[in-house]
């Protein structure tokens, strides 16, 4: 906006303003009614949905599902949408930081005098696109199922080895599902793609022994299953059996 446009805006605004009504009581009445609606919504949600607590935080467990509040889903989903490893740092912080800066600076790069949304096609389209993208990512975040289940067909090779082996495989599937692996790994369509590698075909690359070794002595953020191996070797064995059949 140049000086002339600024002055014109201020003149027109004064005209519209002086044709308006006083803030009290007209706007105050609307605001108060809205405040009642907000209050009613909060009270209803509290009564209907409650405020349940989960089990107490336990830094030594591995059975956890790290899940943020729903309005952070879109940020976490962003990490998963961008696949190539080189781009991950960009996704985690680059995109949100850039969006934040763009948001702060909006009044400085969009300086046109036009205010009607239908005559600012770029701004309006961008706004609608951002809202749609955030909605979509939030939906995907909510969708990414309760990561305590692994729905995959049992491989024929497993069934062929008899009912006993199949039972072991199924037990292993259950242990893996309950151990929070899916927070960071993907099994078929289940679980989250990252930060850990996909495990859908892990046995193609890693032999049984190597899988067991990784569980006991994993790389940095992954928790170790050494305690499980010592306390409950049968469970640990089932876990390794399941993983070593993922081909």
């Amino acid at each position: 906006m140049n000086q002339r446009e600024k002055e014109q805006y201020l003149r027109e605004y004064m005209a519209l303003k002086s044709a308006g009504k006083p803030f009290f009581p007209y706007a105050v009445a609307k605001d108060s009614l809205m405040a009642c609606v907000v209050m009613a919504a909060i009270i209803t949600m509290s009564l209907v949905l409650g405020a349940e607590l989960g089990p107490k935080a336990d830094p030594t467990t591995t059975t956890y599902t790290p899940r943020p509040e729903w309005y952070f889903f879109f940020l976490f989903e962003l990490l998963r949408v961008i696949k190539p490893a080189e781009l991950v740092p960009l996704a985690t912080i680059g995109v949100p930081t850039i969006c934040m800066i763009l948001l702060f600076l909006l009044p400085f790069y969009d300086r046109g005098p036009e205010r009607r949304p239908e005559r600012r096609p770029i701004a309006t389209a961008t706004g609608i696109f951002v809202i749609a993208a955030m909605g979509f990512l939030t939906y995907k975040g909510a969708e990414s199922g309760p990561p305590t289940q692994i729905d995959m067909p049992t491989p024929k090779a497993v069934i062929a080895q008899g009912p006993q082996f199949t039972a072991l495989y199924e037990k292993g599937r259950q242990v893996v599902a309950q151990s929070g692996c899916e927070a960071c790994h993907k099994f078929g369509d289940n679980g989250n793609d990252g930060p850990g590698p996909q495990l859908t075909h892990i046995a193609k690359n890693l032999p049984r022994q190597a899988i067991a070794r990784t569980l006991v002595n994993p790389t940095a953020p992954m928790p170790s299953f050494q305690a499980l191996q010592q306390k409950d070797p049968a469970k640990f064995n089932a876990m390794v059996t399941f993983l070593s059949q993922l081909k």
Partner: protein
Amino acid sequence: MPKLKLPAPPLPPGFPKPAPKRPGTPKQKPLDVAAEAGMSVVDWVDERTSLSGGARWMMFRKVPKGTNWFYTLGSATMFAFLSQAVTGVFLAMYYRPDAGGGAYESMRHVNDDVFLGEFVHGMHKWGSSVMVILIFLHMARTFFFGAYKYPRELNWIIGVALLILTMAMSFTGYLLPFDQRSYWATIVGVNINGTGPLVGPYLSDFLRAGPEFGATTLSRFYAIHMMLIPGIIGALIGFHLYLVAKLGTTAPPWQKLPEQYRQVEEERA
């Protein structure tokens, strides 16, 4: 006799004005006496502070023609924030920021034993969602109405700061109940934060109070959540509202100019 007069309420068009009081009918009813007593108190304060000018400036400014329900979203956000502040104070009366044993138990106690405890806890928990929804709606309104343009740029910038602070409130508050979900989500969140450029690692160390998630992490989150950020948000809302009153709220972009002004503008062009 007080100097201040009660402002006359605006009357709907076509409504007859009440006749002015005639001298010689001074018979004061109890209601008049009560009104007068209230006025003298206000008058006493005003004589020493001159606050009435500011209040009048704030309350009796005009809002432009065409102002609609979308313009209530800002004050609704503020109301959600106030609700969070009040319910938060009640939760703070019971909460113990002790990771070793106490934080989780104190919230259990609130939920299970305290009168209306779970209700207030629930209001605080769901109030945060309501506030986040409202702040995004308010932002969308100001965006699509072009309200961030001259002369309201600074108010947009303060708004973005408020948005970030509100999200930071959610992030720090999420850890406090100290159940499995909040604990592990916060660890992951802080780690992701740490991959950020330049300040990322320092910010993460600051949040954790060290390189590892430790005993002081929880009290640090608590202090940030209930003292640091709410203070800044309160101050920024004050400044935001001052600018709203000073600059006036925008008219909806479709609003037509009154006829006589349109002619003046056309002559000018």
